[in-house]
């Protein structure tokens, strides 16, 4: 069988989906795929473009597994704009003249951003909002103008649709003021009705964005410097601006179709049938460029559906386009907006049921059939939590009183929804309720991660995840599979439940804890967990009482065990600021004990190769010189990394080192479900990489921004903004509560990023709890942290003063000072490291530990 060659023109999200689906389904390798992308990068997540302003890089927008482009049957050409198609010869010409032959051609050229012809639209400072390059140029311009002008940049967005509000949000996050200028009488007029538009306007104005509806822009005028300077409106009004963004809609890029003689629709787009095929059986069109069932569709979900249909047809399948689901749910400027089904009640006899709360900025409308039973559509503004459940119910009868879905939670009992198997749950990836049930029952997916991986549901925009979770839970329950969050065989409770139980019962020893809440003797899972909870709750010494036997490997001797059973030693260096005499002492100790030294990622110094029995001697010298434990071994606060800040740096706006030291001394010794790392940057340049930390504090000219839930490690995540422009005191208060709330409610070994993601209601809910004190927990969390701070003691100093605990540092019970005879080292780059098994055979190169010169 010969391989047929498919050429995809266009390198957007739909081209990516087509290629991915083809490689996933064409298991026999019948087709090779060549993608011609105009942009200089692989397809990226254009829907998430605005997130680029929250400090993300183009790489963060990557779509799917990049290994797709390494597949031998896939070729990706970047910077390759197709200029012509010769359908007779089946050849695509690429800019520069290169010709590419195809057996089948897929047009996936998408749209271009369209701007109404306006005088001055070509002035410097006027931007479109479509590609990463547009967005990067916009960011560069705003930052440059702010520096030049020395005041906040004045921005205007022309267009008050979905993209316009995205752009306004982007300007806000760049610190520019923004005004949205909308030609229609309300915002998002294609998705929401008048009431929804009003609610949206009020909410968005609360965010500091000015909104002008029913306004036509007549001209863009230059300022004295030749850059964009003002907008002149048709009603005679004028507004001063430093940057203008056009978000006035898109038009299909159908020129390749048109010039090669394919039919185009009345409003543009290459006309295709329900299988995405043009009149030429060797040419398909998918995504925004396709005019399907008489219209071009500017959303990702129908684009992905078209890509799947085209792949299916090429592989011999018979699926056809089911009609577009134009349902939308988004978060714009922090405001939830959703619209689905017949949102404008155009169905004859349709009833509208509306709930509006102008004070809280909530507007909800259901469109129902004339008997008020069957759901036809709806609009949700301000609170779109019902969207995931309601959207798949369009066309079905709502159980119970429909008003329950729009009235405030709890006022009327909601009917139980049982979705039919063919109801779509994830519209981005076209996953039905039945597929999710199948993943649970036939493919043994018993947690959300497994269901996502198996079905792809919720992997694009994520708005359906609550529903996916619910369907999965119901299915697991039906199958009699218990979703266990038990810690281990000794405790049926989760860590958070156990934390609460211990706190309420006020028990302080493991034997009491296991007697009251568990069974058996415990194990290496529950013992360290209980040890950590007791430490978080009472802050008593980790090696005191019966607790030494609970501690995990490192905590047990308060040092980090290495592969050969020796330890590394890390004294605290708060904020990375260190006295020269402490540097000298560390160097002296390392020399005396032959320790390998390395700078850590947390701005301190690690000394490797210390034996168990040497730890007290080493720590005595550190403690005598005024240094203390760095808790590098604990599931606890590690370091607060900082840049040098305003005390030395030419750009720093706040004393980041001072803040970092204050934070590190405040939270030192705080035991938590996993390690905690903080960072403080003295200006927006963010040299301390604070957004990669559990808590990142970044200076602004008005105070500090606090970001939370960042992680490096296996799954890197940037921290999200919790509060803005707050004072030193508020930084402490907010972080106190955030950390304490995390410590109380997270799972065992769950870091802040996944905790925050999986917390019901996400970061918004956490913000309500720790900033707005919606649960009334604030005082208790504050008091708990205050107890921690007041009761802090250096745990190494305490051990050095306690002969009983010191006995645990003997190498052998019958030879307390004798080194482990199996240790062996070789020299490398002037220091020693553990010998490999091969090197052990070659005795002469070894350095035995006993030969080390040790000063007592």
């Amino acid at each position, binding site marked *: 069988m010969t391989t047929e060659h498919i050429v995809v023109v266009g390198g957007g999200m739909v081209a990516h989906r087509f290629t991915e689906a083809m490689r996933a389904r064409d298991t026999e390798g019948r087709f090779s795929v060549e993608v011609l992308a105009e942009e200089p990068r692989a397809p990226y997540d254009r829907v998430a473009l605005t997130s680029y302003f929250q400090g993300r890089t183009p790489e963060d927008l990557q779509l799917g597994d990049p290994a797709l482009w390494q597949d031998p049957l896939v070729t990706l050409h970047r910077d390759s704009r197709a200029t012509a198609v010769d359908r007779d010869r089946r050849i695509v010409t690429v800019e520069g003249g290169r010709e590419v032959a195809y057996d089948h051609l897929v047009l996936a050229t998408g749209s271009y951003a369209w701007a109404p012809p306006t005088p001055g639209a070509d002035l410097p400072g006027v931007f479109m909002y479509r590609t990463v390059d547009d967005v990067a140029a916009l960011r560069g311009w705003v930052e440059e103008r702010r520096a030049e002008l020395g005041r906040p940049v004045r921005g205007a967005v022309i267009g008050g649709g979905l993209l316009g509000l995205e752009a306004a949000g982007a300007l806000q996050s760049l610190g520019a003021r923004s005004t949205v200028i909308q030609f229609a009488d309300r915002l998002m007029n294609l998705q929401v009705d008048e009431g929804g538009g009003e609610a949206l306007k009020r909410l968005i104005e609360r965010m500091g964005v000015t909104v002008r509806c029913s306004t036509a822009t007549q001209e863009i005028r230059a300022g004295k410097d030749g850059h964009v300077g003002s907008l002149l409106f048709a009603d005679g009004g004028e507004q001063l601006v430093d940057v203008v963004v056009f978000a006035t809609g898109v038009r299909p890029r159908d020129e390749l179709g048109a010039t090669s003689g394919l039919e185009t629709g009345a409003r543009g787009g290459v006309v295709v049938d329900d299988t995405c095929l043009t009149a030429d059986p060797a040419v398909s069109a998918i995504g925004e460029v396709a005019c399907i069932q008489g219209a071009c569709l500017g959303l990702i979900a129908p684009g992905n559906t078209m890509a799947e249909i085209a792949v299916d047809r090429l592989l011999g399948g018979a699926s056809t386009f089911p009609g577009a689901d134009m349902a939308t749910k988004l978060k714009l400027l922090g405001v939830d907006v959703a619209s689905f089904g017949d949102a404008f009640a155009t169905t004859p006899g349709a009833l509208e049921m509306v709930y509006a709360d102008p004070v809280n900025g909530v507007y909800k409308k259901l469109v129902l059939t004339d008997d008020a039973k069957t759901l036809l559509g709806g609009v949700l503004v301000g609170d779109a939590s019902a969207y995931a459940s309601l959207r798949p119910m369009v066309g079905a009868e709502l159980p119970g009183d429909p008003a329950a879905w729009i009235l405030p939670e709890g006022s009327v009992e909601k009917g139980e929804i049982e979705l039919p198997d063919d109801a779509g749950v994830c519209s981005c990836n076209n996953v039905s309720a039945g597929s999710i049930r199948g993943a649970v029952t036939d493919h043994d997916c018993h947690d959300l991660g497994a269901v996502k991986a198996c079905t792809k549901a919720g992997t694009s925009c994520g708005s359906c995840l609550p529903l996916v979770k619910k369907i999965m839970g119901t299915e697991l329950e039906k199958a009699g599979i218990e979703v266990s969050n038990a810690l281990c065989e000794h405790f049926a409770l989760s860590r958070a439940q156990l934390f609460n139980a211990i706190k309420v019962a006020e028990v302080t020893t493991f034997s009491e804890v296991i007697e009251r809440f568990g069974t058996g003797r415990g194990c290496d899972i529950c013992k360290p967990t209980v040890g950590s909870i007791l430490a978080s709750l009472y802050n008593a010494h980790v090696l005191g009482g019966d607790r030494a036997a609970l501690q995990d*490997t490192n905590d047990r001797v308060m040092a980090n065990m290495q592969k050969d059973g020796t330890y590394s030693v890390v004294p605290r260096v708060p904020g990375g600021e260190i006295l020269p005499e402490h540097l000298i002492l560390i160097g002296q100790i390392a020399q005396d004990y032959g320790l390998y030294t390395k700078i850590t990622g947390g701005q301190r110094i690690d000394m490797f190769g210390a034996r168990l029995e040497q730890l007290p001697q080493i720590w005595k010298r550190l403690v005598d010189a005024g240094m203390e434990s760095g808790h590098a071994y604990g599931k606890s606060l590690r370091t607060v990394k900082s840049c040098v800040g305003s005390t030395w740096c030419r750009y720093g706006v706040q004393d980041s080192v001072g803040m970092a030291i204050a934070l590190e001394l405040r939270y030192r010794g705080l035991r938590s479900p996993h390690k905690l790392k903080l960072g403080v940057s003295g200006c927006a340049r963010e040299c301390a990489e604070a957004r990669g930390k559990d808590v990142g504090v970044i200076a602004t000219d008005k105070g500090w921004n606090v970001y939370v839930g960042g992680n490096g490690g296996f799954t890197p995540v940037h921290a999200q903004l919790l509060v803005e422009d707050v004072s030193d005191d508020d930084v402490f208060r907010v972080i106190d509560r955030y950390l304490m709330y995390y410590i109380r409610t997270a799972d065992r070994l769950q870091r802040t990023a996944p905790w925050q993601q999986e917390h019901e209601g996400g970061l918004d809910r956490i913000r309500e709890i720790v900033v707005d004190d919606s649960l009334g927990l604030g005082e208790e969390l504050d008091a708990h942290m205050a107890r921690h701070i007041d009761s802090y003691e250096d745990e190494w100093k305490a051990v050095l003063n306690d002969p009983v605990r010191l006995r645990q540092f003997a190498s052998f*019970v019958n030879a307390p000072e004798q080194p482990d005879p199996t240790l062996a080292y070789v020299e490398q780059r002037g220091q020693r490291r553990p010998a490999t098994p091969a090197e052990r055979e070659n005795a002469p190169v070894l350095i035995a530990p006993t030969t080390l010169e040790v000063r007592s």
Partner: protein
Amino acid sequence: MTAVSATASSTATRVCTLADLTPELGVAALVGGEQVAIFLLADGSVHCVQNLDPFSGASVISRGITGSRGDVPTIASPIYKQVFSLLDGTCLVTMDKEPKEGRAPDLAVHRVHLDNGVVFIDLAGGA
């Protein structure tokens, strides 16, 4: 294995007293040049296994966490967390790892004798 022998056999070595042991906290000992790990459990039983961790090659078993799997008292390696029975040394949880080349996954178990509060270890007698 649990210590019950009243008198030490001729091959046993005196290692320490019971008072030197803390419940649930292991200690290492040198017996005839070999490293062993000794555990006094909360129920008063004393167990002895090899100190060498077959999965890492380091002599660290004495510094692991004691516990139970079902009714079997266990010790978990402090390095890669494999779990071993303290009764017969069987590796109960491998953590999807293989032991270091040429080593068995299970621990050798040594006979413990208690005599008037003194702990003797007998390398000759296995479990």
